[in-house]
């Protein structure tokens, strides 16, 4: 099994997609391919292989989103990379009102198989406009699949599945994950949507985390293990569709739940998972559900201010101990 970085794993998913389907086009190719750890000769080979299908558009997020939506309806499978996730707010209407509604409004006569990719999360020094975690908003769209990969293998496998999906799909990459390395299965690896990954097994407390927070939850689990607490870390991988069974199964085993979400705590992914467990696995709970998330404030620039509001392994471990108290 080859070892590669998260960024290169995603580029490999794109390369498999481009090679296998002439209807795949990449809009916003430069910021996805360049300076992402690919060998220069490999990057050049990609540009040379697909001169008409790797495109750098104008800085017009609205119309590039309309473009991929219109092109998807007309038979293509476009991939659009926005760069930083806040840039996609320029296209919020096109995502939420156009792409998300194509299938439903037409009663299934039309579909929009497109993939929208963005870099999100508290990256360090990004301040308020380059540190967003918009995942809960996309989960709320009704009509958008939402993918949050947390490892190189899942980055490749989930992105490949996103491009193969017949639905509009938002893939959010935490900027701090790009350099993460890991084993990725050989060849055209695919990971199905709606199947959670048990990142670590444990009996005492369930920690449900997404994206970069899976790494922090695993670090927290190491700390907790030193104190004799065995945490089970569940990574849903996709929020839409959500593997609610896997989450509830884990809580039925452990009786405790901590959710971790780098996004604003208010109406967050963590809130949804807490509500799900309260509805479906209440009898299994031995204590209150706790959420670790960003307080509902814009992300400040200065390092101590940023650190104060950013969820991390220590905060997760503290929450797990509180849940067990």
């Amino acid at each position, binding site marked *: 099994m080859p070892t590669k970085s998260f960024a290169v794993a995603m580029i490999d998913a794109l390369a498999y997609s481009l090679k296998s389907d002439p*209807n795949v*086009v990449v809009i916003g190719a430069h910021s996805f391919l360049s300076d992402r750890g690919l060998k220069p000769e490999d990057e050049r080979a990609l540009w040379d292989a697909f001169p*008409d299908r790797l495109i750098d*558009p*104008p800085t*017009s997020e*609205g*119309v*590039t*989103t*309309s*473009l*991929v*939506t*219109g*092109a*998807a*309806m*007309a*038979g*293509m499978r476009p991939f659009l990379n926005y760069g930083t996730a806040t840039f996609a707010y320029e296209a919020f*209407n*096109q995502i939420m*009102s*156009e792409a998300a*509604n*194509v*299938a*439903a*409004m*037409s*009663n*299934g*006569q*039309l*579909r*929009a*198989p497109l993939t929208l990719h963005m870099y999100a999360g508290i990256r360090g020094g990004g301040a308020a406009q380059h540190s967003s975690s918009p995942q809960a908003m996309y989960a709320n769209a*009704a*009509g958008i*699949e939402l993918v949050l990969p947390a490892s190189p293998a899942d980055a490749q496998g989930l992105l490949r599945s996103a491009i193969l999906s*017949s*639905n509009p799909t938002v893939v959010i990459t935490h900027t701090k994950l790009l350099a993460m390395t890991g084993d990725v299965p050989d060849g055209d690896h695919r990971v199905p949507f709606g199947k959670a990954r048990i990142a670590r097994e444990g009996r005492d407390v369930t920690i449900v985390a997404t994206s970069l927070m899976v790494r922090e939850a695993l670090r927290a689990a190491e700390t907790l293990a030193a104190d004799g607490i065995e945490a089970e870390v569940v990574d849903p991988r996709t929020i839409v569709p959500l593997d609610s069974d896997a989450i509830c199964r884990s809580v039925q085993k452990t009786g405790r739940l901590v959710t971790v979400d780098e996004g604003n705590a208010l109406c967050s992914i963590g809130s949804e998972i807490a509500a799900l467990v309260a509805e479906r696995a209440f009898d299994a709970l031995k204590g209150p559900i706790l959420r670790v998330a960003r307080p509902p404030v814009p992300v400040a620039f200065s390092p101590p201010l940023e650190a104060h509001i950013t969820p991390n392994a220590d905060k997760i471990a503290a929450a797990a101990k509180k849940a067990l108290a």
Partner: protein
Amino acid sequence: MALDPRAMLARMLLMRRFEETVIHVARAHKLGRQHLAIGNEAIGAAALTQLRDGDLIYTTHRNHGHMIARGVDPGKALAEILGREGGLCGGKGGTWHMTDPALGFQSTSAMVGGSVGLSVGGAFALKHRKTGGVAVALFGDGALDEGIAYEALNIASLYSLPVLFLCENNSKEGEAQTSRLATKELTAVPAALKIAFASVDGGDVEACHAAVEAALAHVRGGNGPYFLEAQLVRWPGSHQIVHEFTTGETDVSAAWDQAKASNEHAEWQRTDPVLRAARALIARGVLAREDVLTLDAEANARMAAARAFAEASPLPKPDAALAGVFV
């Protein structure tokens, strides 16, 4: 495509009678708001009847006329407006989002400027796949108040995309002013972005036909996008929020009967595209008055059957609301 004057008038009459039926049906069934295309018949019929299989159409909240002009089943369209199971979208889209992909219609956006944005995506796909088809964006002048329209025009020009931007300018100073642009000339916008353009009297069906023919020839010829502004006369019943049936049902004999054409709506009857088309054809001896009455009776009969179909169509089963979000 050669203009068939009789068929064109027949299509315009069906468009008019469709919208008048919508007014009656909306009252009878206490429906909410619809955006009617009364007054848009000439450009609608001239444009949509010249499209081919494989062309892609992007329309707006004011889409009824485009549907009927293209040949969509009026019964299914009316059923959709009524939210019925037999509607074009099974009641999921309603008046705002009617579509008929078999005839080239794609997702119908009620977001102002939405159709302009989506159309360049269709054009991109048509060009990439070398199908020879064209995309047509139908939109009002109000779309040019929106940023998405400028982004779309720019990228269409930049990539030389096969798209016809057809702007139905129905703005009128005062209450019915639907766009607020710093320029009075809408075509200054495509001009600035190096897009070929023209303006046409949107109430003159023959002029519209010729203008669309030239525009489509430009786009089909691989010359990039084209912007056609159809300057419409706004129907007096059309207001920003609701419509009022102030002019009453169209009496086609007003095309020749001076007594009927001299009421308080004389100005409308002079400029009404349907009456203008009938008047011109009679004056040139292409059609007799009786022919016009016959075509109108046919349109009325079709709409009576369409209404019967739509009203007989059941409401959708409630759990259909949960289906079809994902493929």
